[in-house]
Each structure stands twice: as structure tokens, then as C-alpha cells.
């Protein structure tokens, strides 16, 4: 196959000496611009490997003399954004939640920040649209029914400490007994129809009413309207946390339910807790703030001050607010 190299007459180019079936290969040189581009890329590659993280090692990569890192860039960017929002975050941390809604700028910031906090931390259980999961007992946050209270302060408290968890001593706690061992099957059946009857889903029975009075009214109230202090659901409305079918209600009575929410206060920080509380409150079912002592004049003042210098509350000086940033509610 390899013949003598020779000069091809037609092109004036030297052959490589390779021949296949009489067809000879010309040794045409690479275009010069191409070659120089190639050399330039090689040189650039070497410089790049020296300057930037490039060479993979066992558990990381060479760092490069510039010390460049996209993670560091992201961290710096986050730091920059946090810094630019520092005033808003500080105001949010210390604002009296009862007047948050009256400061449009701060409330808007809280709701937008809360939306992303919710998407990151809450949507796994409560759903992206906050509609909850009925079968699993994750409450729907869009309706107007609140187990532990729907004021923005109540919601912040729930987020901060969670529900029925062992991690936070301040977590709201209540437990319904399992009546499987306590009541007979017929009694449970009567209770189921009574409970469903409370909201008009079934015909109530006298036996069931008596059983309810004896066993359930301590928490759910004699009329079944529940008790927010205990997180006992209102059984007379149209909303069922775990579903209103006879099977679902019977399961609740026999084995009880035990919905747990982890505390988020430490993990999110006060500003984010308040932000997500404002967001959830605004989802549609939030209740107006009551019971917060606030004069009209103070409220006006709170609504007017610019967000950067928003005071902790009408009757507190900012210094006091700094000392006690988390205001326990009721």
C-alpha cells in the first residue's frame, strides 16, 4: 500500500505515499488560519486549566489560581440581595403583625417573599396551590376554616412552632383518643351518623347525640363547633380535614388522627416565618386581625411611615423591639 512519495503534477502537492486501488492520497497541508486557530485553542486551554477550576480530582477539582467559583458567585449574589433588602427584612422581623397589612410596601414584600418560602418549604405537604391533601390530613389553606386560628399572628405562631411535634416545646398540642377500644361497634356507628348529621350529611340519632355529649363535647363543644384553643375541628361546617365519608369519619373515631407539622422558626428565621404567614394569610381565607390593641391614630402612623424605618409597633420603641424581636401572640 505504501508507495514512494512523489509530487502530483496536477496540483503540485506531495503525496503521502498511500495508495488504494490506484487512488493516491495527497498530503495537502492544513490551512494556515485553521492551524493557528488550533494552536490558539491549545494555548487557551492550558491558560484556562491554570486559571480556573478544571482538573477533576478524587473528591473535588483543582481550584485554579484565580480561585473562581460559581457557588461563591451565587453566595455573593444572595448576600447582595439580602443586603439590599436588609431594611425591609429588619422591618418585617420587628413589625407588629397586626398592622402589617396596613403598610402596603412592606406587606407586598412579605407576600412575595412568603410565596417563595412557601414553595420551598410548605408545598411538599400543603401542595403548590396550598389546597392541602385531604386524604392525608394536610389542611387546605385556601378556605376559611382554621383549626388553630386564622389571624396572621396565629398563622405565624403555627409556622414558628409547628403542630404536635416533640421538637418544639411551644408547639401546639392536642390529641384525640382512639375510641376503638372504648366504644362498641354500634356506638361508633351511631356516633358516625351523628357527627355527619351535624353538618347535614346524615340523619342524626339520639343515641349518637348522647355519645357525643359524653365523649366528644369536651373538646369539640356541645354543639360540635370545635375549639381553636385545642385545635379541635368544627364538625358543623362543610369542611372535612380527612374527608366526610362514613368510612373516613369512622376511621377518625376508631383510631384518631394525629397530624404533625414541624417547627419552622429556627430553620427559616423570624423574617421568613412572618413572610410566609403573611402569604398564607393572603391566600384567601385569612381572618382579620382582632384583639390587637391599636388606636386609630397609631394605625394611621404605622401605615404612613416608610418601610425602612417601620417601627416595631405603635406602642413600642424600636430599641425594645430589637431586644425582643419575637412577639408572642396571646
Amino acid at each position, binding site marked *: 500500500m505504501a508507495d514512494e512519495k512523489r509530487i502530483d503534477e*496536477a496540483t503540485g502537492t506531495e503525496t503521502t505515499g498511500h495508495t488504494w486501488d490506484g487512488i493516491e492520497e495527497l498530503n495537502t497541508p492544513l490551512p494556515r488560519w485553521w492551524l493557528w486557530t488550533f494552536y490558539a485553542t491549545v494555548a487557551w486551554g492550558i491558560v484556562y486549566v491554570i486559571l480556573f477550576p478544571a482538573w477533576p480530582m478524587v473528591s473535588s477539582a483543582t481550584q485554579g489560581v484565580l480561585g473562581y467559583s460559581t457557588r461563591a458567585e451565587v453566595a455573593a449574589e444572595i448576600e447582595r440581595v439580602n443586603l439590599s433588602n436588609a431594611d425591609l427584612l429588619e422591618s418585617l422581623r420587628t413589625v407588629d403583625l397586626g398592622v402589617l397589612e396596613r403598610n402596603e410596601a412592606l406587606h407586598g414584600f412579605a407576600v412575595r417573599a412568603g410565596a417563595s418560602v412557601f414553595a420551598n418549604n410548605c408545598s411538599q405537604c400543603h*401542595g403548590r396551590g396550598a*389546597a392541602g391533601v385531604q386524604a392525608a390530613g394536610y389542611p*387546605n389553606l385556601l378556605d376559611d376554616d382554621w383549626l388553630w386560628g386564622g389571624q396572621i399572628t396565629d398563622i405565624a405562631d403555627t409556622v414558628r412552632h409547628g403542630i404536635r411535634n416533640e421538637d418544639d416545646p411551644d408547639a401546639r398540642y392536642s390529641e384525640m383518643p382512639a375510641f376503638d377500644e372504648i366504644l362498641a361497634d354500634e356506638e361508633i356507628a351511631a356516633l358516625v351518623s351523628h357527627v355527619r348529621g351535624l353538618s347535614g*350529611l346524615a340523619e342524626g340519632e339520639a343515641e349518637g347525640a348522647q355519645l357525643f355529649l359524653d365523649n366528644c363535647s369536651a373538646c369539640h363543644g356541645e354543639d360540635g363547633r370545635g375549639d381553636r384553643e385545642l385545635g379541635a375541628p*368544627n364538625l358543623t361546617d362543610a*369542611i372535612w380535614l380527612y*374527608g366526610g365519608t362514613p368510612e373516613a369519619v369512622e376511621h377518625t373515631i376508631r383510631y384518631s388522627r394525629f397530624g404533625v407539622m414541624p417547627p419552622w422558626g429556627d430553620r427559616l428565621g423570624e423574617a421568613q416565618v412572618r413572610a410566609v404567614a403573611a402569604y398564607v394569610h393572603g391566600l*384567601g381565607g385569612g381572618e382579620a386581625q382582632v384583639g390587637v390593641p391599636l388606636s386609630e391614630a397609631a394605625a394611621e402612623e404605622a401605615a404612613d411611615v416608610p418601610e425602612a424605618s417601620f417601627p416595631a409597633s405603635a406602642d413600642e420603641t424600636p430599641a425594645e423591639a430589637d431586644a425582643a424581636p419575637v412577639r408572642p401572640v396571646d
Partner: protein
Amino acid sequence: MTQPAPLFAAQEPIFPRRVSGRFRTLKWWIMGLTLGIYYLVPWIRWDRGPNLPDQAVLVDLAGRRFYFFWIEIWPHEFYFVAGLLIMAGLGLFLFTSALGRVWCGYTCPQTVWTDLFILVERWIEGDRNARFRLWKAKWDARKWRLRLTKWLVWLLIAVATGGAWVFYFADAPTLARELLTLDAHPVAYATIAVLTGTTFVLGGFLREQVCIYMCPWPRIQGAMMDEGTLTVGYRDWRGEPRGKKRVKGAGDCIDCMACVNVCPMGIDIREGQQMECITCALCIDACDDVMAKIGKPRGLIDYLALDDRPPVLPGEHAPVRPMGSDALDDPNTTGRPGSGDTAVEPVEGRTAPAPHAAAAPFVTRHSEVWAPQPVWRHIFRPRTILYSVAWLAIGVALVFALFVRPEIEMTAAPVRNPTFVTLSDGAIRNAYDVRLRNKHGEAREFHLSLTSETALAISLEGEDDRIVTVPPDATRQQRVYVTAAPGSDAATRALTDLRLWVEDVASGERAYRDTIFNGKESFDERTGAAG
């Protein structure tokens, strides 16, 4: 083994001679007009009210607005810009099919700026012969002085060109001040630098090379031209054979080379249609000038179409100079590849196998009996009329769309996560994201209401009175709730049609969007779940 001719020929300097005449005058006017528009338009002010920019023509990329006098285009109305681009394309087709590369010759920025640069060149270095001598001269002090002066003026024009461009994208007086105090955004400086560089190099040095090797338009134009298209051409049946005026039997062309000397593309139009020709018609002016001097009628070189050529009678020899035969040896042509090759192939039977001189006697006789079509017949042809109709149709449609643009723009999107919410009293509530656009310079209040065949209540998130205030020149998204009473028709039905109304509180103008309400019962039936 012969190699194909190379597709690129090294640039040969071209020194176009000064010329005057009707086409040159037209070109001056168009140059003044186009440059004037380009440089001055950003400085026209337009009062739109307190919150909107005062610039008549402004492309606000950051704010995603396009302002054109009284018209304000938002991103979702970009079809207006698309329509204008289509009209520009069709307009180009129209002019090309009627008048050939008239765009290239008169209004193309490359032509306009090159013309301007040649004007400067001629002003500083002198006309054709002086420039030719200077090009050959040694690099002494005089040549350096002339060259540096020329380059400096070119550079000033180029900076002004790049500088004018950025004013279309920001408030011109503010940006001008920032540019001078070095406070402007780096992007502005970078843009000016790039456009300065391209103007300087393309207009000053590359010139016709841009048209021949860089621009795609000459390659496409052939598809839009036909034998009826008016292009700059040479009446060879009148001009050939060339010779001195006194020589008996000679044509009108005295081979004075005026047409070649004035050509900015460096071609000889007497060789027929060529790809390089930008139909700037300077050769017509030059030739007419000569014809006047030698007492012959004007129009030896003229705007004419291929079908204006006189037919060749049987037994006659056409006076066409054979293409490519002597063109390569002709010292007057540049020898650029393509010149001659891309010219129109002589029609069969017309090509003269015999020397030109043999065909001489009948040329004049023939031109007397042959009457070419008038110019207007070339311009108003089915093809151009079709282009005009399409162009006008789009234009009318755009103007119509502009005038029926609604003053209130809204969209209403049902929230489907979840499709509905049961409230504690058993009422069913749906949520909608209503987006309201306020294109006015002042804040507007919109009142929301709804109509439906069944009773439904509307309420707004965070608002007590169903009135949404949208800030000036902004879009606001508002969550709207529609609630059906427990057990009501809408609550129990799968879907209920409803119409969301929005009314401008100030003007009373109304708009609506049709949407649907999701009920509960059908949902229960579908999923088997019970309330």
C-alpha cells in the same frame, strides 16, 4: 487540468470620478434625507404626560416599550413591528421587481455612507486623477497629511453614526450629557465603538467589497427581477461599434470611458447586466453629459429593460458584444470574476458570430423602427401590482389594528390549583388571576363585576370595594374570587359560564372576558368522593 476561476478577486482600488446630472442630484437629496432622518429623529420630543418618556421615537428595551410618536407598542403587540418588517420586505420586492437594485443604489446605508466617505475623500484628496496619483505616490509628508486628514474626518462621521444609534434606545439629551461626562452605561460606549469601527471600515475601505462578497441581497435579487425590470443598461444596438464620432458607420459610443470612470462599483456597464451593478445610475449621468457634448440624443446608457432590446430580424447579425470573449483581455475592465459571467446570456440567434463591423449598417435603421415600451409599462406590471396589493393589504390591516386597539386590556385566567375551594358554610369558591393593563400615563381605576346565568358573588383579594387601581404604564395582576352559595346552581353544576366585566371608573369604558366556574357536585361524581 484546469482550475476553476477563483470566487474571490483581490480588491482593486476604485477612484470614482465626480459626476453631475439628474440621478446624481437625486442621490444627493436622498442622502441628505436619509442621513437627516437617522441623525435627527431621536431628538424629536413628544409630550406623553408626566410618567412617560418625552422622546418621539424610543426603543425602551429595559422597560419593554416601543414609542413611535403617538403609538406605544407593548411586548404583546409586537405583531405591529413584525407587520412593518414584512411590509419592508415586500416593499423591497416591489422596488426590485420594478427598478432592480434601486434600494442598493440610493438608500442602502452602505451606499449612503460610502457616498459620504467618497465625498470627503474627493474634498480632501481631489478627484479621480489626483486620487490615483496620490495612491501611487510615496508615503511622504503630503500623502500622510492628506490621508490622516481623510481618516480623521471619516472617523468623526463614524463616531457620529454610532453615537446616533444609541440615542434611539435612551432619552437622547440625557444620554448625550452622560456620554460627555463619561457617566453613560458601558453598553452605550461599546455600541458606539462597534458601529464606529464598522462604519469606518465598511464605508472607508471595504466599500464595494461589502456589496460583492458580504451582502446576501445581490444573490437574492435575481429571483425578483425579470426581463421587464428596469435596470441600468447600455443600448448596444445604438452604441456599437464604438469609435470616434467622425468615423463612418460607427455607433454612438465614442469609448470615452466616462461611464466606467464614475462607477463606484468599478464595472463597465457596456458589458451588460452584472451582479455588481447597484443601479445607482451615475453612469447614465456621465454618458448623457458626453452625448450632449457630441450632439447625440441622451440615453445611450439608460434605465431600460431586457425586453426593450430590439428583436433581431432573420439574416441580421445582432450588434451584441460577445460576453466573455474579449472582456478578459479588455484593459478597461477590472477583470473581477463574475463580470460578464453573470450577465444576461445573449439570446440564441442573436449572438453574432461575425465581427461587429459587419453588422454595423442596419443598426441605426433598426433603432428607428423599434419602439420600446414606455417606462410606466415597466413599472405597472402584474407582478408589481401584486406586490403593491399585498403591501397595501398588510398596511391597511396594521392601521386598522392600531385604531381598534382596545383602551382596556385584560385577561382572566381561572386558577386550577385547585379548581375550587369549599368554604365552611358549603359555598364553592373559584379564583381567577385577572391581569389589567394600563397604557395611560396616569393611574386608572377599574371596577370589576360579572354576569352569569346563575347567582355568583365576586370579591377581590385584599380589596374591599371591587375597584383595582393600576399604576400608570403598568400591568397589575389581581386575584379575584367568585363564590357560589351552598347548594346553588353554579355550586352543584360541573361548569357554569360567566363573564367578567371591567369598567374604567373615570371614562365608563367597559371590556369583558368570558371564562368558566367550576362546581363541586360533578367533581364528587367524577372522583367518587363525598363532601
